[in-house]
């Protein structure tokens, strides 16, 4: 993990379905910092995260990562990014363990088990994700945060459908990540309890 990673967005203009979502948006994320994107429903928080990982293409704007302009060549950025969207990318037909092995094939069984234990998924490791509850499915997706070594986390409403205990565990993990120099950008409609964050507010 690069300890001096930084992400700078400048002058971003995103349009979707003929509607401007943001125009001239600039902000930066410094190491050790949690950036929280706030805004009402439909103001473009998810679109912003997607634009950073190049899933949608902004009309204008520049993105700097590690001080370099990565607008044209997003590879460096994407390689050190962990993105979890609204659709969490957990496969219904794989079991919990298989899902994690799919995503993080290199982790040792110990690490895997400890992450599962941590998230309360241990008893369900061989259950197919189809027959998990909403919160448990979300936890399967979030287990990636324990298992992969990416610097920049882009989390789209990571707290939704988690119970209070789950939220605490997740906030602790985020705190730990930023204290090691990681970057976190997240969207949420809830208040953070443990982590202090800088806010960027999108208006509709």
């Amino acid at each position, binding site marked *: 993990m690069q300890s001096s990673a930084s992400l700078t967005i400048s002058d971003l203009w995103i349009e979707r379905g003929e509607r401007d979502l943001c125009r001239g948006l600039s902000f930066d994320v410094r190491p050790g910092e949690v950036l929280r994107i706030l805004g009402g429903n439909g103001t473009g928080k998810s679109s912003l995260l*997607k634009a950073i*990982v*190049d*899933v*949608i*293409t902004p009309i204008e704007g520049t993105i700097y990562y590690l001080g370099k302009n990565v607008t044209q060549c997003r*590879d460096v950025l*994407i*390689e050190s*990014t962990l*993105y979890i*969207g*609204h*659709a*969490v*990318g*957990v*496969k*219904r*037909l*794989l079991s919990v363990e*298989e899902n994690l*092995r*799919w*995503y*993080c*094939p*290199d982790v040792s069984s110990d690490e895997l088990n400890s992450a599962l234990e941590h998230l309360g998924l241990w008893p369900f490791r061989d259950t*197919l994700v189809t027959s998990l509850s909403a919160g448990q499915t979300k936890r399967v997706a979030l287990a990636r945060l324990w298992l992969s070594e990416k610097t920049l986390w882009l989390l789209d409403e990571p707290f939704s459908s988690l119970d209070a205990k789950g939220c605490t565990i997740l906030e602790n993990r985020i705190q730990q990540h930023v204290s090691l120099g990681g970057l976190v950008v997240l969207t949420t409609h809830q208040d953070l309890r443990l982590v202090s964050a800088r806010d960027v507010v999108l208006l509709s």
Partner: protein
Amino acid sequence: MTYSSFLQSEFLILWRRKQDVLNALLFFILVVALFPIGVDPSPAFLAPAAGGIIWCAAVLSILMAIEGAFKEDYLDGSLEQLVTSGLSLPLLMLLKVLALWGCVVVPLLLIMPLLSEMLFLPSTVFWVLILTLLLGSPSLFFIGLIGSALTVSLRQGSMLMMLLILPFYFPVIIFATSAVHAAQAGLSYSGSLAMLLAMSLLSLVVSPVMTAIAVKASVN
């Protein structure tokens, strides 16, 4: 995610949905059985047509198998994860084709002896038929996957995809069946086989890149 873990999960999911493979296989048998039962059971009618019938049936069932290749991944967000995984998307697509190909074509080849017997295909031609399937089917998968990726995010899913890719299947079918025909007539068929191989190689080069572009266009 690594390439091998991706491949592994593809196989696992295909195995979990063995259902679909079985479906395609049953459909294959259905089409093949249609001709002796519905048209004419005499060897004089069936034997010369056997190669063509088997190929048509194979194409139709491959179409069915390919059709939903990306649907689930699109809806649950896995496709997004692939795009943002930092791995080479064309390579992932290549692996996906390989996994699918293995799971569909192998069972198809396994029941081939049975079917060619049912259609009175001369046993000398049997191996040519198998060869055309081995050489020709990869290009069907490669082309089909482009169509499937192009249309995942669309409302008019499967039909549009089929409309898009079936025209591309015609040359493959023509070369394959003319190889079988030539073998049946005792002529040389290596030219057709070479064409099949060439098309598979060409689509091997073109398709993963195109599929990757299509996937990226679909996930936004």
